[in-house]
C-alpha cells in the first residue's frame, strides 16, 4: 500500500512540476502567434486536455471490454476512473474552447466540429456515470458500466463525421496551423504533464472504488454446525 502510494504521488508531483514548466514556457517564453496574438497561448492547455481526454476515453473503452470479459472488480474500477477523469478533462476542454471562441470569433459558442463533438462526448459519458449511480448490485453495476462505456465510445466517430457533414454547408473556421518550434515545446511538455496528472487522478479514483468495494466484501458468516435430524435420503 505504501509503495503504491509512492509511485502515483511521485507521478502526480512530476505532472504538476511539468505543468508549471510547460505553462511558464507557453505563457512567457514562446512567441505570440502571428494572427491570434496572445490568445493562442490558450492552446498550451487546451490541446493537451483534448489529447488526454480522447486517450482516457479510448482507455476506458479497452478497460470496459476487459471488465466485461473478466468480471474482475479492478477492471471496473479503472474503467470508471478513466471515464470520470476523461469527463473532467473534457469539461475543461469545453470551457477553454468557449473562451477561445470568444477571443477569436467573438462568440462564446461556435458549432465547430471539435467543439460540438466534445460537447456531445461529455454528455455521452456523463450518462454512463449516471446509470452507474443508480445500480446497487456491484456485479451488475460493473457489467452495465462496461456496456454503457462501449456503447458510448462507438458513437464518438459517428458523431464526429455527422457534425462534419452537418457543418459542411457552412464555412469551416480556420484553426492555427503556423507553429513555431518554441510553440511545440510547451505543448509537448504540457501534454505529458496532463497525462501524468490524469494517471494520478485515475489512481486515486481507483482507490476510492476499491475501498468502497472492500466495504461490501463482508466475509461469509461462520458455518453453523448442523443440528440433529436423521440424514437418510
Amino acid at each position, binding site marked *: 500500500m505504501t509503495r503504491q502510494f509512492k509511485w502515483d504521488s511521485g507521478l502526480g508531483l512530476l505532472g504538476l512540476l511539468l505543468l508549471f514548466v510547460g505553462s511558464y514556457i507557453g*505563457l512567457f517564453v514562446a512567441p505570440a502567434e502571428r494572427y491570434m496574438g496572445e490568445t493562442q497561448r490558450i492552446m498550451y492547455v487546451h490541446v493537451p486536455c483534448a489529447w488526454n481526454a480522447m486517450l482516457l476515453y479510448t482507455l476506458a473503452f479497452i478497460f470496459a471490454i476487459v471488465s466485461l470479459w473478466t468480471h474482475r472488480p479492478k477492471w471496473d474500477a479503472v474503467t470508471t476512473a478513466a471515464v470520470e477523469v476523461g469527463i473532467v478533462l473534457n469539461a475543461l476542454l469545453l470551457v477553454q474552447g468557449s473562451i477561445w471562441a470568444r477571443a477569436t470569433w467573438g462568440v462564446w459558442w461556435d458549432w465547430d466540429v471539435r467543439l460540438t463533438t466534445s460537447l456531445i462526448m461529455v454528455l455521452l459519458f456523463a450518462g454512463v456515470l449516471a446509470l452507474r449511480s443508480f445500480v446497487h448490485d456491484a456485479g451488475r453495476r460493473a457489467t452495465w458500466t462496461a456496456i454503457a462505456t462501449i456503447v458510448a465510445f462507438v458513437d464518438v466517430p459517428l458523431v464526429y463525421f455527422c457534425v462534419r457533414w452537418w457543418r459542411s454547408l457552412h464555412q469551416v473556421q480556420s484553426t492555427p496551423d503556423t507553429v513555431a518550434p518554441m510553440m511545440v515545446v510547451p505543448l509537448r511538455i504540457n501534454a505529458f504533464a496532463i497525462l501524468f496528472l490524469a494517471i494520478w*487522478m485515475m489512481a486515486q479514483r481507483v482507490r476510492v472504488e476499491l475501498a468502497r468495494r472492500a466495504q461490501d466484501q463482508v466475509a461469509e458468516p461462520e458455518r453453523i454446525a448442523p443440528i440433529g435430524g436423521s440424514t437418510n435420503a
Partner: protein
Amino acid sequence: MPDGVIVGGWSYVIAAYSVTAAGLIAYAWSLVHRRRKAELE
C-alpha cells in the same frame, strides 16, 4: 475571424488558465476527500 492581428487578449488567456487550474484542483480535492471517506468507513 477578423482580418488583422488580435491585439492583447491576455485576459482570455488568464481566464482559460485559471479555469483549468481551478477545475483540476477542485477535482483533485474531491478525490482526496472521497478516498479518505471511503477508506475510513
